[in-house]
């Protein structure tokens, strides 16, 4: 007891000197966080709460909507629109895989082989962003038009016979079929795949490749054992940046698709704007969000990459 009461005095002289700067610094991080937090609160948290509330309301425009905790909306929405959910996931997954297959070699080329062309190729990758998303998608209608050269060539080569047999296209056309929608999604989200891939490939030390060669690894082995594992963060963030927006997209399905290619984004849009069934639209949004969150969590766990950069 006596020792305890005696202990503080030696500290006394140092304490006043140390305290003031700490007190000031203590709140700084919070102040710096404030704008971001406010932003999240106003544009993320509040709309989410509003939507969550809407999804359990019942009523009509004339009578007003009241919260009745009508959770059945979720089951009804899922029962009615599961095909569109499934389709969204399939299309988005197909587009993501295509983006990876197309984007990886290009990112590899830019990172290791492009030399002085590197900047030019990067600009070419990003250039489409200078025009509107809508215009770029509409351009595909001209490219894939029934009488156009692309479809003509595909018909001559009998490619469309194969894709028709697979159910990806219908008859001798590409537009208004699943293939067109997946192509549109792939095209529109390709830069989101290439950029993260490039960033993580570019960071790989070239000497690692030399070291692998010195240890008698063939190029394929070098890629499999060295390059690809080191580029995993890029692969994971690229696939996420492609898959997540693609599964919620509705523009491609609207413009390049038909009645049997509608995705969940189209359903939400129609329910919200045309049918004016706000609760169903809100419930569908939440189901989509939960489904994506679940899939992404599972994916990140499996790929074992916790840090995405």
């Amino acid at each position, binding site marked *: 007891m006596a020792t305890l009461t005696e202990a503080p005095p030696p500290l006394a002289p140092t304490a006043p000197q140390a305290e003031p700067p700490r007190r000031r610094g203590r709140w700084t*991080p919070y102040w710096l966080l404030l704008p971001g937090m406010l932003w999240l609160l106003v544009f993320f*948290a509040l709309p989410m709460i509003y939507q969550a509330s809407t999804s359990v*309301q019942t009523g009509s425009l004339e009578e007003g*909507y*009241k*919260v009745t905790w009508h959770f059945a909306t979720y089951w009804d929405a899922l029962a009615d629109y599961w095909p*569109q959910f499934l389709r969204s996931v399939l299309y988005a997954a197909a587009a993501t895989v295509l983006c990876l297959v197309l984007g990886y070699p290009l990112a590899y080329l830019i990172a290791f082989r492009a030399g002085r062309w590197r900047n030019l190729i990067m600009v070419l990758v990003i250039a489409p962003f200078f025009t509107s998303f809508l215009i770029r998608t509409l351009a595909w*209608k001209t490219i894939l038009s029934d009488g156009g050269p692309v479809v003509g060539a595909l018909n001559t080569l009998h490619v469309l016979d194969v894709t028709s047999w697979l159910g990806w296209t219908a008859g001798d056309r590409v537009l208004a079929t699943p293939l067109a929608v997946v192509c549109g999604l792939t095209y529109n989200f390709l830069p989101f795949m290439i950029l993260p891939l490039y960033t993580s490939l570019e960071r790989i030390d070239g000497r690692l490749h030399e070291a692998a060669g010195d240890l008698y690894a063939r190029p394929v082995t070098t890629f499999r054992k060295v390059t690809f594992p080191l580029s995993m963060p890029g692969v994971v963030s690229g696939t996420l940046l492609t898959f997540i927006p693609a599964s919620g997209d509705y523009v491609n399905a609207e413009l390049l698709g038909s009645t049997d290619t509608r995705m969940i984004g189209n359903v939400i849009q129609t329910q919200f*704007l045309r049918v*004016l069934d706000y609760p169903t639209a809100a419930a569908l949004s939440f189901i989509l969000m939960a489904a994506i969150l679940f899939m992404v969590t599972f994916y990140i766990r499996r790929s074992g990459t916790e840090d995405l950069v």
Partner: protein
Amino acid sequence: MEQYEPDRLTPPQVAAMRRSMRNGRAAMTRRSLLRASAGGALTLGGLGALSACGIPAAGKTEGGTSAEDHSAKEETVSFSNWTEYMDVDEAGKHHPTLDTFTERTGIKVKYSEDINDNSEFFGKIKPQLAAGQETGRDIIVLTDWLAARLIRLGWVQKLDPSNLPHAYANLSGQFRSPDWDPGRAYSYPWQGISTVIAYNKKALDGVEVKSVSDLLDNPKLKGRVGFLTEMRDSVGMTLLDMGKDPGKFTDDDYAAAIARLQKGVDSGQIRRFTGNDYTSDITSGDFAACIAWAGDVVQLKADSPDIDFLIPDSGYMTSSDNMLIPNKARHKTNAERLIDYYYEPTPAAQLAAYINYVCPVDGVKDALAKIDEDAANNPLIIPDKAMQAKSHAFRSLSAKEETAFEAQFAKLTGA
């Protein structure tokens, strides 16, 4: 032992402990921050907050419909219209008809093209109107069904006929008494819209199209036919083709029309349902024929000789875009004067010559002939008697019907 333990702590050690109290546990770590924000979100998202945000009943707007009319003091009027729905001079900067109005009356027009889509615009103005606040707009232009909905909800103001002498006298017969606004107490048409069948001669390649039945049944057109996402146009044309009157049909008639369209979807006859983007499909020949809006067809025909239109024997659908004055508008009288101005033959003709929609004003033909002879003789712009006789309007729907019908149509289009 216990007595000695504190002894072993040297002053620097104690200081370190204190520091760690402040900089360690108490200091902000990522985890504590996450916990704190999650806690905050939970509190906010609590059940109370969820129940608190219901949407008030639409019809019960409080505070009345009219606002104090500032027309005399503020010589201005704010006019919200669709894009490319007004005459523009060569330089693309001025709207000659609006300029004439300002010259004559001294009322400045704040013209904005901020309506792109009925449903979207409804979403935009709904919160203000439902809460009984002003929208900042004195005139808005909306298609029949949405105009009907706003009137039903009590969100627009009754017009004062004494300010509308020309409009009253010159409104064309076929637009005079829609069932949703008998005698035009709340609305006046801006332009009429005819829904017809457009075709691409080259893509048809000799296949004869005369009716909606041909679109739905001719196997030679499989996968090359388009319908509109606008429910009233697609279903209306189908109802007419089935011999029903879109002005008074029953639930069963509607279901039958949907079933008929569904058959076309299932068999792959209908390629897709489109909004305005059908214009690129019909020009490229991906659509051989489709349901189309006449105003677009006039334009497409001018650009491409392959495109033409036809009116089925069973008739065609006509709707209109209507000028309305929303609740709480600040310049009601000015707005009414502007509406009336567009019912004078000269400005109406100038407008019709420029935008190619159905002109809802009688007695415009001579004035229009002076500007553009072809336009004056085009039945799609100035409908003749035969044309008017084939015109049909979709009946107004109750809120319940509207939701049910739109839901059925949404199923048909795949969502």
